[in-house]
């Protein structure tokens, strides 16, 4: 570790004590204890790997029977600011939702400015970009229209995905309030929320029910498709003479492979 890196790490460590209150809300007491220790570690001018391992050791016994001690002594404690910077994921039960708020109306303005170019003014999807709205009742149709409203089981997915990946080409540029507002607007486009003044926030977020929420179930192939197992495959006179009923060349959508793609 270079002197410069040590100085940088020390600076971060010094910041820990100031920020630990906000952090402990998301963490358990053990993490807080580690943070305290790390904060105190700023008395040490140089933090060696051995020190880090020592700091990272569990400091208070609890009922965790699987608790292990580090065997390799590699890696260093993740700092609360670092965890806060990356741990932005949101779960269906609301875990991870940041404090924030946004209305349908606010969301519409953001959507038309930053999202409609791909997703369409009404969330219908432009070209092959994904539609976000519509499609209710089409899941058993010949051509299902799978949108946030017709298909997505959890609202948290909308928030989590927007805040990490959207807008495409400028990811992680939206504030928490803007993500709440966009989420509210997408609900509105799907008639899940009817009031354009509705405000979505971290307190009412988990009260929203998605129309298709109950239509998902865990993989049951080993039961539902049990017939695919264990039978001795037929080797002789297994079926009547087959006839061709469809040809890919009739569909004519295979890329022409005579030359490679254009390469700059």
């Amino acid at each position, binding site marked *: 570790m270079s002197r410069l890196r040590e100085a940088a790490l020390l600076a971060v460590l010094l910041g820990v004590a100031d920020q630990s209150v906000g952090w402990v809300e998301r963490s358990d007491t053990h993490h807080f204890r*580690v943070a305290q220790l790390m904060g105190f570690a700023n008395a040490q001018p140089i933090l060696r790997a051995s020190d880090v391992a020592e700091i990272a050791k569990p400091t208070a016994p609890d009922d965790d029977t699987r608790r292990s001690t580090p*065997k390799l002594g590699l890696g260093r404690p*993740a700092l609360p600011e670092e965890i806060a910077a990356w741990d932005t994921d949101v779960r269906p039960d609301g875990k991870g939702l940041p404090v924030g708020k946004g209305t349908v109306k606010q969301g519409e303005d953001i959507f038309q400015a930053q999202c409609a170019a791909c997703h369409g003014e009404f969330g219908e999807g432009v070209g092959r970009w994904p539609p976000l709205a519509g499609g209710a009742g089409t899941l058993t149709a010949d051509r299902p229209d799978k949108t946030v409203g017709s298909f997505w089981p959890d609202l948290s997915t909308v928030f989590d995905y927007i805040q990490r990946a959207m807008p495409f080409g400028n*990811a992680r540029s939206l504030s928490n309030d803007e993500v709440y507002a966009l989420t509210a607007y997408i609900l509105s486009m799907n008639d899940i929320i009817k009031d354009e003044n509705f405000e979505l926030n971290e307190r009412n977020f988990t009260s929203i029910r998605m129309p298709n929420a109950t239509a998902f*179930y865990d993989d049951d192939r080993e039961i539902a498709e049990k017939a695919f197992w264990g039978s001795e495959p037929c080797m002789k006179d297994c079926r009547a003479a087959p006839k061709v*009923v469809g040809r890919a060349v009739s569909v004519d*959508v295979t890329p022409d492979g005579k030359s490679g793609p254009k390469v700059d």
Partner: protein
Amino acid sequence: MRDPSSTGAPSRRRFLGAAAIAGAGAALSAVPAAAGGSAKPDPLITDVQDWARTPGDGVDKRPYGTPSKFEKNIIRRDVPWLTASAQSSVNFTPLHALDGIITPSGLCFERHHAGIAEIDPADHRLMINGLVDRPLVFTMDDIRRMPRVNKIHFLECAANSGMEWRGAQLNGCQFTHGMIHNVMYTGVPLKLLLDEAGLKPSAKWLMLEGADAAGMNRSLPIAKALDDVLIAFAMNGEALRPEQGYPLRAVIPGWEGNLWVKWLRRIEAGDQPWATREETSKYTDLLADGRSRKHTFVMDAKSVVTSPSPQAPLKHRGRNVLTGIAWSGRGAVSRVDVSLDGGRNWQTARLDGPVLDKSMARFYVDFDWQGEEMMIQSRAVDSTGYVQPTKDALRKVRGVNSIYHNNGIQTWLVHPNGEAENVEIA
């Protein structure tokens, strides 16, 4: 995934175009050219060729070797109408031209959700947080100081063959089956990293997250994570390719490719799945009753004949080699059967090369062909006794709208002139 907006009439041009890649369509030779007493000597033998007269490139001319210029058409190809943007898209491994079980690194299909993240390994960090005793940050140097292992596994996109649910659509195994590759990974068992952080007993799921602009995230059950998951930094003996997640990716043997998070930057332990976009709106299997299976992680046993196939037509009567690949996410391939008559009669193919757990296996049938029409199929059986189903058997239990996990038996119709095409049979 959508069907093309318009379907044209049968296209002879297109069909011949595909065949022309491999230089077929010309007259089939039944006997060796020099067999007769009046045959002319081959000037390639009797004349001194340029490459036999003058030296070629010296050793430093090609510091990182690439395939021969005569192989320039053996490349990954995409299907432009499938996706809206090349940054959120897929291309396909040229299976028809490959052999053995290892996919060359530069031909492994790509699937990105926000393009290729270009990350200096010195700038890469892996964080483990959540329900652990010690949230930790690792550098690439840290990871390279851990005990490592080597494993050969296939990676198949759950959407491989997804365009074929409603019938034959793409004319070439590169496009129907090319969202798969099989390489040797070098990496650290995830269990070692989790032990270092100390999983809490309440931890039942992990969330894996990429450093790319899609922040790709997926939930992984803890039992799988502790079983055989690797955090890999090398493939086929060298650093991961950028498009395969350089400098660090997850390897989830036998499970759908979307879980193998590339540019892996964070692993969070939690007590329930996250229901991310990629495990709810995508990578769930919509069935005929309108309900959807979720967490369909395992890739079922599957196989395909890679040659002959539409891009690899037969060029000679007499002796020929039929070859293909088989794999199963539930174990090892135990057997592959091949039919030349559309599934009426079958023969067991010869497996050659390593037959490994959750890896591609290579099969062959050496056969004589006298120009008769054939409907070629292959059927894999795995070590759990799973028998690869027909497409119709799959449709019967799933309908045609599930997009993912299409492992039905493929049919290639081989014409008397040696050309092959993708057909649906009944």
